[in-house]
C-alpha cells in the first residue's frame, strides 16, 4: 500500500471519491444503463471527462442522452431532447436491455451481500416489513442482462450484510458458477464501489473482496463497516485520488 494522505488533507468528500471511482469504470464507447442519483452523476462525469463517447441509456427510454446538467428525474426533458432516440419503456427493456446491447449497468442497493446479490424490497419480513423499500424497478433485469454490473452504495454493516432479507436482484447467488447454472447471460456484478473503497469480484469464488481503499481510509475501517467477514485482496491498493480535472467536471455538473 502506498502512503495515504490524512483525511484532513483531502480536498474532496468520500462521496465525490465514490462517484469518481464509479466514473472510471466506464471507457469511451461503453453503453451504460443509468438511473438517477450516483449512477447518473458518475456516467455523466465519465462523459464529461475521460469517456466522451460513453452512451447513456436511461430506462425511461432515452438512448444516447447527452444532458449538460444533472437531471432531477429520468423523465426530464433534457434527456429526451438530447437523446439520439427515445423509445417506449417496453422497447427499452426488450430490444435494448434484454437483447444484450448494454455493457454496464449501475445498481444501488439497500442491502448487498458478499456475492453481489441485492435487496431493494424490504428490511425485515416480506409480509410484515420493518421498512418497506421502493422495490425492484429495472434492477432484476439489469442484473440479468448487462454485460457487467457495477454496484454503488455507502459502506455500512447495515447495508453490506451477511444475509439479505430479500433477493431483489441476483448477483452471483451463492457464488461459483451460479449464474451459468441459471443461464443468466450477463457476467453479473464485477465491482462494488463505496465511499470507503472498491471491492471486486474474485474470479472463481465470485466473492467480493477489498481491492482498493480510498485515500485516507484504513483497511480495518472498511472491514468494520462491512457486515460480512470481508476478505482483502493480496494486492490491495489505494484508489487514485480524484484529479483536478475530475473534480472540476464533477462539481460543475453537480452545481449546474
Amino acid at each position, binding site marked *: 500500500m502506498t502512503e495515504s494522505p490524512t483525511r484532513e488533507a483531502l480536498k474532496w468528500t468520500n462521496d465525490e471519491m465514490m462517484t469518481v471511482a464509479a466514473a472510471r469504470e466506464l471507457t469511451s464507447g461503453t453503453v451504460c444503463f443509468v438511473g438517477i*442519483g450516483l449512477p447518473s452523476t458518475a456516467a455523466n462525469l465519465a462523459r464529461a471527462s475521460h469517456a466522451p463517447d460513453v452512451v447513456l441509456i436511461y*430506462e425511461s427510454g432515452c438512448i444516447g442522452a447527452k444532458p449538460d446538467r444533472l437531471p432531477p428525474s429520468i423523465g426530464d426533458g433534457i434527456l429526451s431532447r438530447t437523446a439520439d432516440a427515445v423509445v417506449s419503456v417496453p422497447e427499452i427493456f426488450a430490444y435494448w436491455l434484454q437483447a444484450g446491447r448494454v455493457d454496464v449497468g449501475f445498481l444501488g442497493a439497500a442491502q448487498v451481500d458478499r456475492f453481489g446479490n441485492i435487496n431493494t424490497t424490504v428490511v425485515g419480513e416480506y409480509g410484515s*416489513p420493518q421498512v418497506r423499500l*421502493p422495490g425492484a424497478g429495472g434492477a432484476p433485469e439489469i442484473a440479468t*442482462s448487462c454485460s457487467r454490473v457495477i454496484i454503488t452504495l455507502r459502506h455500512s454493516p447495515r447495508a453490506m450484510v451477511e444475509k439479505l432479507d430479500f*433477493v*431483489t436482484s441476483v448477483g452471483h447467488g451463492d457464488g461459483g458458477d451460479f449464474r451459468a447454472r441459471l443461464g443468466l447471460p450477463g457476467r453479473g456484478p464485477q465491482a462494488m464501489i463505496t465511499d470507503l473503497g472498491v471491492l471486486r469480484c474474485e474470479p472463481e469464488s465470485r466473492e467480493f473482496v477489498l481491492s482498493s481503499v480510498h485515500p485516507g481510509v484504513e483497511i480495518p475501517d472498511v472491514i468494520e463497516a462491512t457486515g460480512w467477514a470481508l476478505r482483502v485482496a493480496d494486492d490491495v491498493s489505494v484508489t487514485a485520488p480524484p484529479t483536478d480535472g475530475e473534480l472540476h467536471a464533477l462539481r460543475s455538473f453537480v452545481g449546474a
Partner: protein
Amino acid sequence: MARFSSLHDAVAEHIHDGDTVALEGFTHLIPFAAGQEIIRQRRKDLTLVRMTPDIIYDQLIGMGCARKLIFSWAGNPGAGSLHRFRDAVEHSVPHHLEIEEHSHAGMATRYQAGASGLPFGMLRGYAGTDLATITPTISWVTCPFTGENLAAVPALRPDVGVICAQQADRDGNVMMWGITGVQKEAVLASQRSIVLVEEVVDAFSPHTNGVVLPSWVVDDVCLVPSGSYPSYAQDYSQRASAFYSQWEPISKDCEKFLAWMDEHVLATSDHAEFLASLDPALLEDIND
C-alpha cells in the same frame, strides 16, 4: 370515437368502486389531476396499477381509495419515500393494502401482453430472485425450440387506463411525445380509457417518436392544462421539483397529510382550483 368531457364526468362515468385502474406515466406526463379527481369522488376498493407509483399514488393510498397495488417501483424519485404507501404496507394505515410486485421489465411485458390480446408475456428475468417466490403472477415457460426456461407474466387488462398526452385534435385523436413510457400500452390494454391533454389543436405538428392514438381507441378526452403538475409535460411544463421535496414532510406525518389533502384536494372542485390553492412559489418556473 372519443368524447370530449370534463375530467369530473370522465371519472364519474368510467371509474367505479372496485375497478382496476392504471394511471400511467413513466416519470413524465403523470396524470396527477385524474388521481386527485378520483380522490374527490371518493372511490374505494380500487386495484391501482402502475410501474412507478409516486406522489399521486401516495395520495390515493393515504386517502383510502386503494385495496391493492400492482407495481414495480414505489418511491418519490430523488426526494424520499412514499410514506402513505409505506404506512399502508408497514402498519395497515389507513387499512391493509394488498401488493403485487414485479420488475419494470415484468410490468412492461404485462402491459404489452394486454395490448396484444395475449394471455401472457415472457421475458428473461426473475430467475434466482425472491420476487419469483412471493409474486404469484410470475411463472415459467419453456422454449419449444431451445429448451430455455423463461419467465411468464399474465397480461394486464385494467378496467380503466388513464394517461396524460400533450394534445388532442378536434376529432379526439391524441398525441404525446418526449418520454412516452408505457402509456400507449396502458390505453390499449384497458377496457376503457381517459386521456388528459394540455391543449386541443387543429392539427398535430411532427415529433419524432411521437405517439398518436386514434380517437376510436380512446373513450374520453379531457382538456386539463397542467394536468400532470407537479410532473412534466414536455414543451408545456417543467417538473415542480420543490413540490416533490416538500412532499416528504407532508407524507411523513399522517395528520399533516390529511390536512393537506383536505385543503388542496377535497376543498377544491377541480384541477384549476387545486393549482390556485398552492403556494404560488410552487408554480414558478414550470413553463417549458
